[in-house]
């Protein structure tokens, strides 16, 4: 049997080669391991549990690591009715999350106050924290939460990480 001679690159041994930029690679790492902070305030939190459970399985999208400590989370999912009383600690928890961070307003109440047009309820969590994705529904189906997560992932994938930063200059990633 004649020995085969390898010329150049063998993808069967070395694996596929993907050409990309450092920024895009970092964004790809980042968007596929979004760690949610489950801010469960009302019945939407029950649907959020279903999203994390086996039937809908949020770990298919890399977000199964729900952290109840804001220091270890980068995506706050506001699930439920935000009262004025809870608005204060919601803002404090958001402020404790390290940058970069994103917010999903899950359901009608978190998005607009929902059916609670009353003295006690904040009319949309976007009055105190910046919201990236709103989910309609009362409560939303778990698929809608997964859809919102995919939208967040697309957004994260397009955000520059190193471009224009000091680190990029030090690594000579950018032309002067």
């Amino acid at each position, binding site marked *: 049997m004649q020995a085969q001679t390898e010329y150049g690159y063998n993808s069967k041994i070395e694996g596929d080669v993907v050409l990309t930029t450092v920024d895009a690679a970092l964004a790809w790492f980042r968007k596929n391991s979004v760690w949610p902070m489950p801010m469960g305030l009302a019945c939407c939190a029950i649907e959020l549990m279903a999203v994390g459970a086996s039937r809908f399985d949020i770990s298919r999208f890399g977000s199964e690591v729900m952290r109840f400590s804001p220091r270890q989370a980068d995506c706050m999912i506001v699930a439920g009715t935000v009262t*004025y*009383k809870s*608005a*204060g600690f919601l803002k404090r928890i958001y402020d404790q999350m390290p940058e970069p961070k994103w917010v999903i307003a899950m359901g009608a109440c978190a998005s607009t*106050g929902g*059916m609670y*047009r*009353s*003295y*006690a*309820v*904040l*009319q949309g969590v976007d*009055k105190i924290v910046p919201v990236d994705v709103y989910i309609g529904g009362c409560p939303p189906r778990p698929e809608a939460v997964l859809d919102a997560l995919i939208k967040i992932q697309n957004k994260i994938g397009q955000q520059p990480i190193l471009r224009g930063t000091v680190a990029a200059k030090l690594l000579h990633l950018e032309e002067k």
Partner: protein
Amino acid sequence: MSALESANKIQAKFGALIAGPTEFRGEISLKLSDPEQIFEVCNFAKRQLGFDYLVDISSVDNYGEDPRWTLVYHLRGVASGEELRLKTDVSEEKSELPSVLPVWRTANWHEREIYDMMGIRFSGHPDLRRILMWEGYPYHPLRKDFPLAGKPSDLPGVAFTQVTPMEGGPFVTIPSTGDAIGREPRVRTPENAEPGISDQRLVDGKLK
């Protein structure tokens, strides 16, 4: 012993202070004319008549009338199954009556809720703080003269409130065969008010 017999015993004990008993659909109510005596009446009902369970205390705002407040105590004897309702009126100037916390410990949170929502104080209550709203909130939101949309307030570092846009509310489900948007509109204008609710049409933001 029935609830009516218990009510008669209370009436025999306190005499002219107690009006009633009145019966409505099998439920017995007593009216106490002097709210300062509420502790003595409740204490008697528990120690002597076996009403060992305070189901609830509710407060009514008879806005525009005098006396403004009505306090309603729902009593129950667990062993006998008797239920008794005890009412007393409190004037707006006073807005205070004795706490029944030494009789039933569960009165603690009931009275705190009434204080929070209506602003009626309970003398002798050891811990009369707000229970639902935060300390420092300046209003009592279940009073009839408090708007559903709320009033602006700000307590830095604690909480703030804003006026809620009512958009033609308050919103109640309109009985109709229409779709969900028609039954439960998010914004109510003269255009989307259904013919079936002409008796509840909005005039200047109020249901008439």
